[in-house]
């Protein structure tokens, strides 16, 4: 059924997000290593090499997409779509005023019962 498919897709997208996050961490670690290294060789105003920046941005993009796709089915927010879920039966049911000795009692008779009291 669709629900199992759904949870499968969710799992995959979660996995991708985790991997992307690891990549992001890795890029952060690389950046730190690089800065330490350039400090130790005494270079002024070090700017990060392009591969680290790309790794970071790419991981961010992948992670964003994976997380967005992983939230499951989106639901419409318009009032009309919300009302579509109801029917005349539901709107007009008036649950507080339901009566229980209706035709069903004749169609499917009850076993004789005694009055039920609260203990």
């Amino acid at each position: 059924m669709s629900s199992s498919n759904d949870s499968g897709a969710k799992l995959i997208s979660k996995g991708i997000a985790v991997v992307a996050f690891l990549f992001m961490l890795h890029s952060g670690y690389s950046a730190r290593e690089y800065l330490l290294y350039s400090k130790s060789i005494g270079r002024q105003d070090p700017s990060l090499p392009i591969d680290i920046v790309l790794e970071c941005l790419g991981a961010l993009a992948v992670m964003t997409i994976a997380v967005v796709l992983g939230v499951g089915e989106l639901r419409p927010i318009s009032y009309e779509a919300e009302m579509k879920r109801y029917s005349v039966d539901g709107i007009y049911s008036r649950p507080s005023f339901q009566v229980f000795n209706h035709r069903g009692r004749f169609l499917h008779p009850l076993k004789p019962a005694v009055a039920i009291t609260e203990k």
Partner: protein
Amino acid sequence: MSSSLKLLAEIRQSSERRPFEVLKLSEPLLNKGSISQAGDDVWLVYEQVFIAAIDEGEIDVAKAVLEILHKRFGGSQRVKRLYGMINEAVGYPDEAKKLYDEMLEKDATNVLASKRLIALLKSQGQYSIAIQELVSYLDTHGNDFEAWLELAHLYLANHLYAQAAFCLEEVILQQPANHYFHLCYAEVNYTMGCLDIALKEYLRVVELSTDNVRGFYGIKLAADRILDITSHGAGKSRDSSHFKVENAPQKATLERLSQLATERLVAIYSGTNDATKKTVEAWLKL
């Protein structure tokens, strides 16, 4: 959460009365004990199952569920009301009435008990007393739309359309964007002969709810009827005197509305089987 719990929640939220399905869905849950997966909603599920069970006449199931609820919420007014309801179902309205009276004695503002007392009157066929009681209930709780709806229902059952229309206006005031109430109001007005109001309300229905079938049937019916009456002149058409059409739109607009309804209905019915489609097309005089 299991799929049957999800379905139960859906039925609960729609407030449709489908006791047979509720029992069928809940039976395995009750037997296996997996009902506790519902988390915080578990008590709501129990209440739902209880009401379905007394509706279906499954008194043993109802008793078992009620015992669980009693153990958890002994002394609660909401559970006490359930005791009253099960007595109604097994045919002891006097016992039920006693319970509700007790609840009201303890707390005169208990709306659930007041409503059950009115339902009890209805179940005994005493419609006119029920109406009186409901009117006095609404004098206090003027913003209870469910009660206004019930009053409209009772008036309709007694053939009092103008009074029912008043109740529905009250409901519309509270929920102006719910097209079902506009629909009911339109039908009441049509029945009373207020065709102009009926047409406008039907239009409101299709404005709020795209391609609403009842709405377009109503528009077609009302627009054609008004055209018929106005073109024959007020005097000639039989029993046209009790129709109200003064505020209806002009002839050209009416014709366009009727045509729009025809078009939409044809489109809506395009996917149905032959017999239905042919009948509807014949009805639309295509």
